[in-house]
């Protein structure tokens, strides 16, 4: 018999429940409100009282209402049919909810994440008597462009023997396709889908590796200057309006990965809608299929219940780990981790825990660290490699990076793309600060060229600062040219027009080509009669290079424009 209890207190989305029997930490329970069952999770137990966070609006609950405990942790369903879906933080499929409940998110409505009425073409890859262990492939089903592996449940310990396996055929996700037996004679069934608790990492792999291979995002400033590695982690902190979300959206479109999981965590619904409505119509150049077929959206927007927001990042990372287990490269984009941290803070406040800095709970740092640690490259048991790359945005209060969430995140990530208000105000997008940001990974262009370009940026900026004090007339012409060079590099390479068909995404090959040309220009010795002539020249050069950026690399004009640039460079010498 399962445990039940009665509500003794309601405070916001937290209820206190007096229970009979046993409950576990993080166990899921349901508060009964008439016919409705509101999903909740145990966050603290004190004697016979459990404090639970409710994943729904608590309006209408009363002292004495019944609570039923499930005996399980918060789990998600893993199986074919996840791709292309839109879930809320608890893995409720939103389109289905819309079909059943209309415009609004009715509380207490839970649907299976994977449709039970759809069948999948299963091909077994094991035979009776084979020895298998957690994470081994039993068979495959085609899901879109991928061979979706049906795997031995990740939680299984030791080596098991295949006792039974069905032949190839069409089956629903809950159909038992194999039975496994161990030496003691215990038998467990394996279906096309399995369940996994979201807060526990999936570890059914052979070895975890160091992320070394670059992940091309097709955003020049990232790939060239502050690269991200497959299986690496990065964060994008920035004040509001600095372009975090646009950056995430661009990455979700153009990044060179197999699968993208978008976790819209406590952000605007409108942004999810853009992804939701546009992705089905955009074709992935690699596969020729719609982008939606490689995307899963976990969407718990800011007006949806706060506790489910906390669950949503875990749901997202669990799905990412699941596809990694199939030897795929997965990118998880979490926007924004600050909202998740705030959900922790709200709950901590209701529990009346002793607050840490800015009232965030004292365990914030370890929670953030263990989340980012779920990223990584792994070798699977069959020798293939899979990766989960995690990119999280951070929304620091007041745009000040000294706040707890940004600082805790910076400690654990491999790359930092700090967005700056000054750059976004000047419409220099993407507004990643080229002087403050850093990355520990290797990029797509030659490292010594990048070092040189960064030096130009740094010194150019110093000259710019100095000029503010001593004025243009007090600046030496050579310094002034250096400043112009830095500005030129910024204007034609760091800045990228997200809304232009060609400029929005620059392939690694094109980056190498363009960057080499630009570094050549930066290295050139230029002589000008005076500062005005220098400025005039750089105005024209900038415009010509920007025009170049807007031409497709295959087009004939691309080459012509490049020779025009080279011609201009020659001219800079003749100015003397």
């Amino acid at each position: 018999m399962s445990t039940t209890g009665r509500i003794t207190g309601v405070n916001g989305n937290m209820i206190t429940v007096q229970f009979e029997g046993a409950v576990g930490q993080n166990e899921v329970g349901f508060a009964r409100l008439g016919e409705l069952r509101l999903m909740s999770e145990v966050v603290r137990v004190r004697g016979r009282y459990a404090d639970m966070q409710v994943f729904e609006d608590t309006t209408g609950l009363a002292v004495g209402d019944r609570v039923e405990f499930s005996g399980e942790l918060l789990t998600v369903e893993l199986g074919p049919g996840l791709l292309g879906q839109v879930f809320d933080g608890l893995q409720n499929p939103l389109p289905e909810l819309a079909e059943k409940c209309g415009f609004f998110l009715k509380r207490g409505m839970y649907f299976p994440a994977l449709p039970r009425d759809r069948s999948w073409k299963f091909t077994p890859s094991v035979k009776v008597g084979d020895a298998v262990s957690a994470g081994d492939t039993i068979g495959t089903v085609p899901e879109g462009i991928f061979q979706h592996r049906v795997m031995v449940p990740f939680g299984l310990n030791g080596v098991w023997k295949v006792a039974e396996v069905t032949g190839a055929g069409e089956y629903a996700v809950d159909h038992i396709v194999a039975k496994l037996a161990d030496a003691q004679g215990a038998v467990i069934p394996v279906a096309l889908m399995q369940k996994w608790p979201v807060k526990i990492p999936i570890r059914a792999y052979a070895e975890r590796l160091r992320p070394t291979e670059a992940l091309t995002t097709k955003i020049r400033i990232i790939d060239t200057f502050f690269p991200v590695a497959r299986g690496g982690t990065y964060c994008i902190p920035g004040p509001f309006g600095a372009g975090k979300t646009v950056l995430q959206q661009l990455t979700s479109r153009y990044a060179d990965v197999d699968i993208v999981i978008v976790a819209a965590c406590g952000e605007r619904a409108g942004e999810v809608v853009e992804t939701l409505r546009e992705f089905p119509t955009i074709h992935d150049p690699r596969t020729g299929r719609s982008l939606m077929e490689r995307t899963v959206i976990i969407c718990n927007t800011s007006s949806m219940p706060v506790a489910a927001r906390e669950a949503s990042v875990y749901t997202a990372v669990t799905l990412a780990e699941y596809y990694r287990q199939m030897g795929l490269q997965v990118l998880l984009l979490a926007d924004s981790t600050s909202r998740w941290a705030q959900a922790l803070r709200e709950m901590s406040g209701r529990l009346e825990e002793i607050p840490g800095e800015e009232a965030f709970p004292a365990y914030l740092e370890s929670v953030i660290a263990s989340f980012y640690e779920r990223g990584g490259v792994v070798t699977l048991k069959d020798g293939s490699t899979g990766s989960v790359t995690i990119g999280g945005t951070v929304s620091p209060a007041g745009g000040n990076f000294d706040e707890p969430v940004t600082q805790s995140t910076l400690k654990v990530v491999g790359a930092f793309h700090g967005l700056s208000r000054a750059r976004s105000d000047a419409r220099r997008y993407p507004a990643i600060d080229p002087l403050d940001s850093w990355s520990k990974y290797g990029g797509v262009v030659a490292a010594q060229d990048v070092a040189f370009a960064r030096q130009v940026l740094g010194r150019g900026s110093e000259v710019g600062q100095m000029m503010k004090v001593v004025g243009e007339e007090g600046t030496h012409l050579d310094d002034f040219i250096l400043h112009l060079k830095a500005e030129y590099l910024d204007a034609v390479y760091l800045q990228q027009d997200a809304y232009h068909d060609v400029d929005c995404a620059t392939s690694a090959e094109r980056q190498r080509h363009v960057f080499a040309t630009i570094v050549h220009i930066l290295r050139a010795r230029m002589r000008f009669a005076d500062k005005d002539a220098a400025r005039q020249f750089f105005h024209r050069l900038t415009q010509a290079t920007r025009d170049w950026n807007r031409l497709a690399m295959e087009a004939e004009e691309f080459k012509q424009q490049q020779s025009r640039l080279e011609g201009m460079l020659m001219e800079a010498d003749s100015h003397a």
Partner: protein
Amino acid sequence: MHKVYHQIDNIAGNVVNVKAHGIRYRELAEITSRRGTSLAQVIRLQGDSVSLQVFAGARGIATDAHVRFLGHAMQVPFSEALLGRVFTGSAMPRDKGPALKDNFIEIGGPSVNPAKRIIPRRMVRTGIPMIDVFNTLVESQKLPIFARAGEPYNSLLARIALQAEVDVIILGGMGLKHDDYLSFRDTLEEHGALWRAVMFVHTAADPVVECLLVPDICLAVAEQFALANKRVLVLLTDMTNFSDALKEIAITMEQVPSNRGYPGDLYSQLAARYEKAVDFDTAGSITVLAVTTMPGDDVTHPVPDNTGYITEGQFYLRGGRIEPFGSLSRLKQLVNGKTREDHRTIMNSMIQLYAGYRETLEKQSMGFRMSSWDQKLLKYGAMFEKEMMDLSVNVPLEGALDLGWRILAGCFDPVETGIPSKLIEKFWPKQVSGARAEAGRSQA
């Protein structure tokens, strides 16, 4: 019949505690004391102790006041009869009209399923170039106006309300000065727009906590109009007062404050309201324009800061003008590609050059010599401020774009603007092409 409770245990701030059974979370109660009757809402249940937030304020409530629970959460009447009417912060008539008693709807309902939303696609034309050209307002957008107290934000709101092409206007006043309320009403009346407006006004003279209801009431009503295929514009002024009321209650309830005394859930509270802005796939839409005054002109203050993260951009009102830096409409890219091909280019180029002008101004104020480029920027900046930024400028979008080209041509050579050569050929005003050729010669 609902039971009446007589024994109030605690009174702290605007929160009272009463012992009662079978009470539901967020249920409404009526508290009757010597000073009159007020609505109150359940904000915490703990055993048999019920905490109630009293909307009219707890001042004058005695421990023997009568508390009658109503068995439902806050509701407002909804019908077409609301149009043209003015109500208080708790939806009682403020004008001389009759109280409305039918078709009650719950306020603060659930949020819209993201799967039922659509990508906003219609521009809201305002005739203000700083909005139409540079930060286009889009139907279903939620946008705050950040301003220091004393800026003409309410008149800007009123002007947008009059000029925007919408079916219904809902005004929510929170801590509104009585004069401001009257001037809103009079402006709408003068221009014949009152018949399509509903006003819920909590004035500065009313009890502070009462303003907590205003956004929810406005948005619940707006939602009903939108479901009935209406395009609704909701104006809220001022959300900082709303947040301060939240703070007051949170402190009274002894919640751990997160930042400058505001509760940790300020973000979620504000988001729950702003996120009501929506474009339904098969019905109308809600656009929300709200005023957030910035205490001390500080945008990092928790209220504007959290708001900025929630809304789809913001307008900064400074010195009576919409400031081009910082002001942002996040949705503009959805519509400004379809207006005219030069729209985005004009928008970006003019702002980049204006940024250059601001730098030059700084240099000038430090007494540096002005180069010929600086001179051009100075001329440009002055023209831009006078002919574009001034809030009295009232031209349709296309006129404003042409004006932009004229200003650029009056100050610069085409190459100096960084505008793609193709657009220059098409739009650069022809009469100054002589000046361009001349500039080319002097350069060679």
